[in-house]
């Protein structure tokens, strides 16, 4: 009896009832705080960019670019802090694993990145299966927004099919006997196929075609073959340290500026690493941090980047800045993190201020349609970073922009419903 006396309250309510009531009461009082805590939970943007290997510097620059976009939004969207979760992009298999980790463990709202086309082609089906928005900021293989396209993947970078058209008229002035060295994966092989078609249709000759494994350090044996073939133009589907190594070793053997040189796309950092003496060539460029094409908004990005990181941004920085801006704008405008809603918004929205005219993703292939530059490395480079003269914009007639990226029938992209 004594025990039961102590177990009951003076009002005759059992302790268990009292505790349950208290718990309910506390939960009611605390409810606003719980909601506040949930509101403060970060909106995570997943990032897959290389942290090591040939494209490591592109990874870092891209990450930096995205951080500027976060700063532009004041670090918050929908009153929640923005968090970039950066995992490594090192091979198709490991990038797939990291993509799953971002989706399942980090619960990200969207994913951006992808420098290597091979890696992006591997993660695209994961994006489709998980219904997760994938903003592919750096790959160029044509099929990404072509026959392999899907409704959750958007691409910022340029397809090879477009870049080869932009630079060919200028390169053919050097002659039509060409040699090709390309990285032996999707991007390089696609670049060769696209450019070879243009060259051969125009009556040109392929003197040689070599595939080089990604991460090749020594190109001297390739260069011996090129030297013997004596091409007018060397077209290389190489990027990152591969391109740097090639330029340094061409310089070593005295072939710098002895022939035309181009690639499907170029990152400034690859040339900065080779140095002014070894750098040369004419390249398609999605963007350049100097030049008359620079809009006010892009110039502000350059200033912010320089201030934060102490050096100007190369093109990968702009791509990931734009990619992150596009995702965050979509989240802000739709007030949602649902990938279907974000994709719907991106299909319709035009982004003003980034290039001469508003740019946007096409609704039938999710390719960002934008003008690009054809740029040549200066004969005399006096600045540590400013290597390029801008020769022209492509297409020359802005009215031809849509047509330059191909029609729906030409692209061959069909979204699964």
């Amino acid at each position, binding site marked *: 009896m004594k025990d039961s006396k102590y177990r009951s309250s003076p009002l005759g309510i059992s302790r268990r009832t009292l505790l349950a009531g208290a718990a309910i009461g506390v939960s009611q009082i605390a409810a606003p705080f719980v909601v506040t805590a949930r509101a403060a939970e970060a909106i995570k943007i997943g990032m897959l960019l290389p942290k*090591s290997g040939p494209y490591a510097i592109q990874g870092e620059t891209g990450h930096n670019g995205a951080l500027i976009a976060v700063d532009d939004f004041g670090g918050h969207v929908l009153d929640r802090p923005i968090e970039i979760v950066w995992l490594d992009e090192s091979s198709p298999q490991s990038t797939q694993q990291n993509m799953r980790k971002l989706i399942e463990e980090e619960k990200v709202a969207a994913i951006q990145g992808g420098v290597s086309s091979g890696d992006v082609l591997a993660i695209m089906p994961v994006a489709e299966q998980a219904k997760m928005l994938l903003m592919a900021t750096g790959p160029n293989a044509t099929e990404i927004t072509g026959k392999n396209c899907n409704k959750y993947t958007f691409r910022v970078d340029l397809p090879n099919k477009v870049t080869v058209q932009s630079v060919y008229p200028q390169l053919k002035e050097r002659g039509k006997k060409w040699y090709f060295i390309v990285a032996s994966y999707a991007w390089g092989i696609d670049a060769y196929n696209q450019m070879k078609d243009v060259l051969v249709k125009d009556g040109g000759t392929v003197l040689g075609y070599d595939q080089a494994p990604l991460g090749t350090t020594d190109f001297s044996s390739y260069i011996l073959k090129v030297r013997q073939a004596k091409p007018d133009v060397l077209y290389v589907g190489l990027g990152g340290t591969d391109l740097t190594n090639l330029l340094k070793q061409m310089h*070593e053997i005295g072939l710098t500026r002895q022939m035309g040189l181009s690639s499907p796309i170029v990152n400034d950092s690859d040339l900065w*690493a080779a140095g002014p003496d070894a750098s040369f060539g004419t390249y398609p460029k999605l963007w350049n941090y100097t030049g008359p094409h620079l809009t006010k908004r892009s110039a502000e990005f350059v200033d912010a980047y320089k201030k934060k990181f102490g050096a100007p941004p190369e093109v990968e920085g702009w791509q990931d800045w734009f990619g992150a801006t596009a995702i965050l704008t979509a989240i802000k405008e739709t007030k949602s993190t649902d990938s279907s809603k974000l994709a719907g918004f991106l299909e319709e929205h035009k982004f003003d201020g980034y290039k001469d005219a508003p740019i946007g993703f096409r609704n039938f292939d999710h390719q960002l349609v934008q003008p690009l530059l054809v740029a040549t490395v200066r004969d005399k480079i006096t600045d540590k970073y400013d290597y390029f003269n801008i020769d022209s914009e492509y297409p020359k007639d802005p009215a031809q922009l849509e047509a330059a990226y191909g029609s729906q029938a030409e692209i061959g992209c069909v979204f699964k419903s």
Partner: protein
Amino acid sequence: MTELIISQVVNGLVLGFLYVLIAIGLSIIFGMLGVVNFAHGVYFALGAYFALSLRDNLGPWAIVLAPLGVGILGMAIETTLMRPLYGKEPLLGLFMTFGIALFIEELIRTIWGAAGRPFNPPAFLSGFIIWGPVLVTKYRLFVLVVTMLILAALWLFLHGTRYGRIIRAGSRDPEMVSMLGINLKRVFTAVFGLGTAIAGIAGVLAAPLWSVVPSMSEAAIMPAFVVVTIGGLGSFGGAVISGLLVGISVALSIQFWPAASTAVMYALMIVVLLIRPRGLLGESWERFE
């Protein structure tokens, strides 16, 4: 075609000497200390980065001082981090060197930045020499001569001096050498310093040819391991033969099947290990059996 093949073989031989230089430090450290040094590539990278920092103020002296700096750092690491693990579970040493590799690569990224740094060969070594079908750049010829001098000096040191004999004896039977009153701890530290300094030399010499980036160790570590494995772990002569074999194989594969030029060295390693599991000149060492 014959001319191009001859040219490729010679080019492969020259490349092979660079592989030998990268691998020989790894081979010495394993042969003498029994340490499988996963951090070998970062000492190679440090050689390039030290030279990068020193060359503006010290000019050609940077080529000498950078590897010396790497060797001193190697000795400090051996004394503080490696020595406590001798005689313990071999996996611990492996993990330690792996950790050191990751740490130093990040350190390089923090100090020198992630971006690649230009590094040209000196002006007097620019240009090339042509003998019939063979074309060799002056810089690669310089690398070849330096490598041969280092190899000759190493061989003479190990086989012609008292210190060399102590090192070789210590590598086979450390307990017996210790019982003779020789301070093996110091010997091991010196050997580790020597191996890392040679990696540093390779890094300095490779800097004008290959990208100078924080992850440049990756370009060195895999060829180094392949060369040492093919040659026979710890075998000096084996590393030389194997390095040249790998160089020629890579060059010829680029001539005939470029896409396989990286795979060819691994294929060569598989074939050699299947036929001779100890590697070409590898011997049975009681200590490691």
